[in-house]
């Protein structure tokens, strides 16, 4: 053992003499681990939340029966099922507002609730009597309690004025969900004797066939291990994971170059150790042990950084997921033990992978013979050809996925293959560019300039690949976000056409307000609005009522429509479909759908497709009057007003005063737009943050590569210095060379980035969100990124160059002598 420790001590002494190398290695490992585990932490946090949501009585983890064509069915069907031997438990679900915030209200029946339904079986069962006996209890997650700003035992009122049961905290619940006894839920939601679904327990007792009990009214929904939220948010997490992976690999580039250099420098030491009697097996084991210990330390630090990153990004991630999918993620980061273990493991595996080539070299190292640089260069040239062939193969794969693929995953596969191919072909492109430069160079120093740049390529190529990928992704994501931003703002203008928005507490108040408004001369029009929930092809959709008003005709964001679309809408037998819905169900103009309505199915012909960005549900828009005929229960509490802008503030003030409306209940267009934009901006802030991180890591990769390269290149520079080039001139040439390859790389990254953006907009977004955005190029943004990239390269190149410029002639002499 002490033999191994002494050997380890000798090996480690290298780092003490080369702290910069050690720092580089650790920085690479730390940033790889940090970004990867940070993203994993975010994903895990979200997944935990989905699990909690799924565990909330009738998520998709349990088989259930739902109405075939409506959102609810009569309660007696539940009793009929029980009496026929079905181990079912009823659930009522609806939406409820408290203080203007929307919540999901679940009514459960704790006595029949199957134990396996919930991963938190104690919910609602610990104290049956107080839960079911008036006033009952309303179970909420700790986060919800904090959101409401209330204490346990207090009784909030809904926006409809219903006094709700006293609050009680249930840690297992997901935020945004209120759980009460089924009887109370039916009262609160005004759904007497109606239930939304029944959950089916696992008891295998004999049961009568479903049809003999409920006819064709109910539909069996099989349990699904993947929750709805997981399916919906897959794309978002895939996106995060992709960034995490990218950063991870960029980090490993750094590790690879640092380890490569360290091994190269330590080869004589390894030989001496062998000559002094350290066996090959012992040496190799100690080398691996050294690497693993370093990875362990870096992994721990990386995990801590990952935790900090995750904690910093969590609010934005949570906001995005809430805004995009309605998924509630708690704001407090909680991590399982597996996360720590996985983080350490990924750090060690990453280090071993990055060091594989160097380790293999050390293991195969003969004690006597020395390295042969020329042969190594030949191998490098073969490698260049091989890489280019692999790049072409990767491009072919990308094309194949693009042509044949039809899923989100294949969209990401296109991206991955594209970027891999681009990274692999980069050295060849640089080689060709530099060879061209060399051919056209006339003076000896400039010939040497190009030739030496070419020789430098192998050492730099990994860092340049990292730079290329980081830049391309930045261009791609930046273009996507900017495209989305422009499109979104135009769309918002179309959707938010009214000048003032009113949300009354009740239909009665609404009609009171409308009556009052009709007497106001500044109100040019009252635009009624309403929305009903329905189901189409087994999925929940919204049916939106559009008043037959010029405001809507002029502004509604139709993507395509029949020329007489608006006129035909008036008849009530046609509709516009949202883009998401039309893509999901493959609906086109002229297709017919049947929307289940209380009075019977409502057949509708699609006469237009409109953009409905950010809505997780599909939507159809119909004539408002027709909507109220088919869905008489639709609340008519929301409406918009056309008012000349100067009169808006006074009108709002008067409305608030006269009808006791708060800021949430009446708002002007500007406010609503600002709010929407704020939510939108948060949605992409995570992407941008990760983007920046990745670029930063790529910069570090470039810096470390240049630093390590600078050391190994001194022998090549020393003769030049010896024949009369000043150190300053050498330094300038070095800087120029670095900037030249960085510039070529960046120029290559721009078209690649635009390709990435196109993939994101036309493939990934369509699959992930259901909408396609117009592809736009933003030249200014590209120039800006180019500048940033070159600045990063300059910064990275500066340190080694300054060191070169200041290097003592004596050092150069010694190098000249020693490397003879």
């Amino acid at each position: 053992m002490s033999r191994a420790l002494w050997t380890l001590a000798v090996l480690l002494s290298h780092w003490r003499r080369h702290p910069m190398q050690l720092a580089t290695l650790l920085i690479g490992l730390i940033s790889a681990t940090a970004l990867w585990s940070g993203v994993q932490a975010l994903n895990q946090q979200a997944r935990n939340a989905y699990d909690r949501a799924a565990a909330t009585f009738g998520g998709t983890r349990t088989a259930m029966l739902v109405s075939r064509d409506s959102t609810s069915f009569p309660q007696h069907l539940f009793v009929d099922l029980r009496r026929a031997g079905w181990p079912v438990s009823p659930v009522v679900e609806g939406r409820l507002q408290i203080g203007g915030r929307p919540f999901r209200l679940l009514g459960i029946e704790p006595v029949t609730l199957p134990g396996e339904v919930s991963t938190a079986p104690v919910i609602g069962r610990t104290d049956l009597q107080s839960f079911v006996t008036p006033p009952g209890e309303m179970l909420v997650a700790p986060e919800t309690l904090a959101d409401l700003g209330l204490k346990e035992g207090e009784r909030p009122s809904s926006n409809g004025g219903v006094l709700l049961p006293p609050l009680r905290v249930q840690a297992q619940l997901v935020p945004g969900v209120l759980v009460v006894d089924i009887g109370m839920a039916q009262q609160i939601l005004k759904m007497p004797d109606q239930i939304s679904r029944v959950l089916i327990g696992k008891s295998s007792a004999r049961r009568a066939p479903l049809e003999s009990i409920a006819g064709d009214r109910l539909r069996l929904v099989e349990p699904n291990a993947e929750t709805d939220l997981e399916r919906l948010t897959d794309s978002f997490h895939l996106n995060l994971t992709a960034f995490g992976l990218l950063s991870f690999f960029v980090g490993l580039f750094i590790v690879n170059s640092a380890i490569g250099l360290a091994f190269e420098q330590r080869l004589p030491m390894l030989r001496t150790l062998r000559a002094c009697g350290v066996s090959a097996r012992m040496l190799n084991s100690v080398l691996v042990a050294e690497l693993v210990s370093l990875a362990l330390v870096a992994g721990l630090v990386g995990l801590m950084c990952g935790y900090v990153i995750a904690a910093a990004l969590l609010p934005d991630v949570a906001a995005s997921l809430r805004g995009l999918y309605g998924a509630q993620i708690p704001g407090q980061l909680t991590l399982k033990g597996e996360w720590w273990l996985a983080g350490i493991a990924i750090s060690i595996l990453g280090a071993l992978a990055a060091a594989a080539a160097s380790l293999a070299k050390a293991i195969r190292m003969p004690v006597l013979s020395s390295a042969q640089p020329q042969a190594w260069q030949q191998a490098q040239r073969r490698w260049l050809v091989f890489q280019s062939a692999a790049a072409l193969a990767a491009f072919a794969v990308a094309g194949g996925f693009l042509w044949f693929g039809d899923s989100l995953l294949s969209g990401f596969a296109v991206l991955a293959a594209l970027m891999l191919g681009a990274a692999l072909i980069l050295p060849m492109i640089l080689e060709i560019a530099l060879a061209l430069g060399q051919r056209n160079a006339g003076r000896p120093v400039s010939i040497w300039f190009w030739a030496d740049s070419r020789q430098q390529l192998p050492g730099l190529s990994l860092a340049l690949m990292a730079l290329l990928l980081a830049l391309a992704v930045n261009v791609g994501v930046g273009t996507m976000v900017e495209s989305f931003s422009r499109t979104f703002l135009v769309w918002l203008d179309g959707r938010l056409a009214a000048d003032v928005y009113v949300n009354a507490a009740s239909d009665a108040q609404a009609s009171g307000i409308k009556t009052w408004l009709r007497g106001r001369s500044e109100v040019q029009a009252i635009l009624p609005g309403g929305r009903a929930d329905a189901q189409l092809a087994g999925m929940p959709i919204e049916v939106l009522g559009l008043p037959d008003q010029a405001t809507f005709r002029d502004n509604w964001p139709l993507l395509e429509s029949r020329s007489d679309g608006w006129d035909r809408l008036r008849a009530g037998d046609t509709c516009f479909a949202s883009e998401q819905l039309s893509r999901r169900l493959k609906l086109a103009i002229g297709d017919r759908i049947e929307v289940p309505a209380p009075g019977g199915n409502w057949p509708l012909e699609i006469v237009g497709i409109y953009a409905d960005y950010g809505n997780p549900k599909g939507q159809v828009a119909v004539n408002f009057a027709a909507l109220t005929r088919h869905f008489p229960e639709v609340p008519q509490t929301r409406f918009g007003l056309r008012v000349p802008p100067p009169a808006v503030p006074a009108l709002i003030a008067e409305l608030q005063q006269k009808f006791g409306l708060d800021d949430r209940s009446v708002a002007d267009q500007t406010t609503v737009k600002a709010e929407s934009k704020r939510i939108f901006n948060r949605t992409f802030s995570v992407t941008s943050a990760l983007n920046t991180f990745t670029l930063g890591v790529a910069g570090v990769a470039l810096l470390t590569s240049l630093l390590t390269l600078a050391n190994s290149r001194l022998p090549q520079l020393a003769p030049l210095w010896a024949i009369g080039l000043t150190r300053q001139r050498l330094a300038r040439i070095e800087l120029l060379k670095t900037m030249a390859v960085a510039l070529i790389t960046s120029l290559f990254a721009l078209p690649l980035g635009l390709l990435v953006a196109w993939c994101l907009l036309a493939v990934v977004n369509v699959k992930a969100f259901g909408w396609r955005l117009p592809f736009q190029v933003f030249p200014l943004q590209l120039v800006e990124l180019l500048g940033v990239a070159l600045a990063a390269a300059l910064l990275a190149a500066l340190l080694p160059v300054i060191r070169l410029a200041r290097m003592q002639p004596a050092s150069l002499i010694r190098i000249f002598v020693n490397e003879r």
Partner: protein
Amino acid sequence: MLEVTGLRKSYRSAGEDIAVLRGVNLAVAAGESVALTGESGSGKSTLLHLIAGLDAADGGEIVLDGVSLSNLGEAGRAALRRDRLGLVFQQFNLIPSLMVSDNLTFQSRIAGRHDPKWHDELVQRLGLAQLLKRYPEQLSGGQQQRVAIGRALAPKPLLLLADEPTGNLDEETADEVLALARDLVARTGCGFLMVTHSARLAALLDRQVNLHAGVIA
């Protein structure tokens, strides 16, 4: 103590086998110092490397202290080097990231044969007391080679093998270093086999053998 009999070794170069050693016989007794001379390319270093177990022979036998090297695997030969042999190279081969004191002791520590008293004596005799805290790059060639000799003798080996130990040193320094080595070899009573192309230096040792055409004349 060291007996080499019928040792053969050839290398493959440019498609043909070149026999470097063609049946070398050599013996070094305990306390004896032997100079191995021969022109460049005669196989002096190859013979030394084979004796050190750094390379494997094609035929013949090397017996060190009753142990035949051909019966040992890589690990066994490493252990032999570690515990029984001291190696000194022309290029010094010190560990650049270790200070002189650590360079002196690491082989004896890895061998588990560290003896503080002997260590102190070595430091005194080699005149390294003032240099212990320096790194190899801060030493002159003669100083570096003195450290290398100290490292090789620290585990009290049976046999000290030196490959042109003074090849990188000027004449005066070379004499001084060799005198120190002989002094210490005499002090420990180990065998000493030195490869050199200098007849002047070879003459300073007990016995001289010449390698020519793959055999010892």
